[in-house]
């Protein structure tokens, strides 16, 4: 095999301009795919991280039917104490779950004493919420310590629109589920930066204040947000929560519903589109490699018919001729994949130093941190190498099937 590779290498060297041109095409294709993958991966992981770790969590548990009417923030679809006790018993020792947080979600009137607007609120236990959403604290500015009862964290758009400052007192007026109205005074404790997707513009208050404002006599929760130890195990974690889904009420209908972050945010469709575009780019790369190598190997066979005739005449078995041509295609593929990977890593390193910023929706100055995992490099390289081999199969068999007499006669 060593000798076959040696001869193949020299055959490639013989037409070095063509070899370089083909290898460059493959290299450029590999660079294009890897850079695109790294950039889109950076955008994707940043945005997914923001959505899950500062807003949605990884999984949410609600009373059945809550998510369908989430826009109304219904208070009559809250989880009661008995339901919470059941869910708690199911998630307590679940190996996939790192932490969880209870939320009461409701809408209220927000008044700065001169003007009034509406606001959507998450009422939480701050310690649990911060443990479940580790990036939430990065969204909060101008705040000392954690949220305490009597305080509110106001979304930045509302801060600007209502002309309030940290330290100001505001009034929240809310209807409870029975329709009675109640108001509480709260101090603005911090400003909440917005993120894309549902819930990205919700304010935060302490759960005790919500109970007071909504006059809740018993424990009630709109949703339970779960953080997983490893987000890659989302499917397994979701499956492990199956007993919660199987819990039925007296009428034999499900009590709970469980949604992963992917089901809760429309951004997941953008992620799927990015993945689809990744696949499309890879298909383009595969086509480039396939056509380039097929073209070069076919030309190589036609140019070397007489030579193939000679090696066949002196006793080279057809299979060895196949191996000879497959090795040439393989080497072209390996060369293009290795060079492309090295150049891509260099470009990505430089992009990391340059720190490219971008804006997405209302979020500005986001920094792209492209990163290439060894798995991505290996998968692209392996695809290129396999396609190189596949592209060489037809020319290789054509060469091996040449009639030595006809081949020796050719010029």
């Amino acid at each position, binding site marked *: 095999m060593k000798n076959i590779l040696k001869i193949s290498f020299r055959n490639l060297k013989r037409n070095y301009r063509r070899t370089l041109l083909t290898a460059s095409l493959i290299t450029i294709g590999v660079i294009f795919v890897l850079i695109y993958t790294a950039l889109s991966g950076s955008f994707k992981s940043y945005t997914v991280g923001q959505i899950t770790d500062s807003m949605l969590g990884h999984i949410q548990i609600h009373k059945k039917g809550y998510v369908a009417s989430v826009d109304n923030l219904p208070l009559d679809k809250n989880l009661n104490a008995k339901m919470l006790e059941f869910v708690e018993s199911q998630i307590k020792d679940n190996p996939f779950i790192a932490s969880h947080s209870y939320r009461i979600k409701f809408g209220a009137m927000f008044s700065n004493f001169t003007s009034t607007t509406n606001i959507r609120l998450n009422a939480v236990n701050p310690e649990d919420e911060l443990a479940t959403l580790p990036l939430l604290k990065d969204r909060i500015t101008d705040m000392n310590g954690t949220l305490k009862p009597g305080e509110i964290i106001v979304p930045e758009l509302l801060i600007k629109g209502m002309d309030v400052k940290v330290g100001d007192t505001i009034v929240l007026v809310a209807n409870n589920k029975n329709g009675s109205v109640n108001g509480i005074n709260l101090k603005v404790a911090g400003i909440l930066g917005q993120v894309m997707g549902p819930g990205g513009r919700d304010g935060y208050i302490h759960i005790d204040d919500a109970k007071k404002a909504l006059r809740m006599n018993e424990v009630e929760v709109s949703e339970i947000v779960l953080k997983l130890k490893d987000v890659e195990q989302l499917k397994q974690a979701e499956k492990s929560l199956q007993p919660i889904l199987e819990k039925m009420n007296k009428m034999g209908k499900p009590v709970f519903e469980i949604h992963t972050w992917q089901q809760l945010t429309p951004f997941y469709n953008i992620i799927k589109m990015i993945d689809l575009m990744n696949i499309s780019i890879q298909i383009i790369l595969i086509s480039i490699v396939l056509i380039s190598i097929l073209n070069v190997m076919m030309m190589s066979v036609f140019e070397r018919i*007489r*030579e193939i*005739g000679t*090696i066949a*005449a*002196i*006793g*080279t078995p057809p299979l060895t001729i196949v191996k000879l041509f497959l090795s040439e295609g393989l080497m072209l593929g390996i060369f293009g994949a290795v060079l492309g990977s090295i150049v891509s890593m260099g470009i990505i390193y430089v992009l990391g130093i340059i720190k490219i910023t971008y804006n997405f929706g209302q979020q500005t100055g986001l920094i792209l941190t492209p990163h290439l995992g060894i798995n991505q490099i290996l998968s692209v390289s392996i695809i290129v190498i396999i396609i190189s081999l596949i592209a060489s199969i037809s020319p290789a068999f054509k060469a091996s099937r040449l*009639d030595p007499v006809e081949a020796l006669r050719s010029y």
Partner: protein
Amino acid sequence: MLKAVSLKKVYTSGEVSLEVIKNFSLEIKEGEFISLVGPSGSGKSTVLNMLGCLDTPTSGQIIINNTSVTSLNRTQRANFRGENIGFIFQSFNLIPVLSVYENIEYPLIMVQNLDESERKKRILKLLEEVGMLEHKDKTPDKISGGQMQRVAIARALVTNPKIIFADEPTANLDSKTAHMIIELMKKIQKEHQTTFVFATHDEKIVANVDRLITLIDGEIVEDKRIVR
């Protein structure tokens, strides 16, 4: 060592058939220095290709060293050629990407799979025999036509074949070089008892063979032994 019995070769194109070899029978003994002669189109090269297992007859049988080569498949024929037959071509047909040494080494690696020390021993001996030792590291484009044919002879001999087929081996050489190549082949035939079968027009070869077979229209019209 070689027996061809009632060989026929028919080429068919559409509805037209052309019988280029008609009832060709021949027996060749070990160490013979034979030339097939005849006008162009008489079937010399076709016979040579069939005897050399490059081509198969439409009918008839070829037996080389007790093996019926006409019943072998493509791969078996390639293996048989590699083990038993050497070829010398009019255009030398050296592999351009390999050096002189590597061209001779090629059949030993690809066909006979010999270990390196044995290969080296055989190749250096042959390079010395054909007078190309000092050019062993050159590629074919750096040596003359005569030198290329010497390398081709060494390549044909390196597998220790019982029989060598040479199709117009001197056609691309000048007279002086052709003479030297013929002398070299005669010397090898004597020293190695290798059988040489030529297809040629070259009078210089004809003047040196010890058996002359004349073909016209695919048939042997004369089989003459020449005592020198």
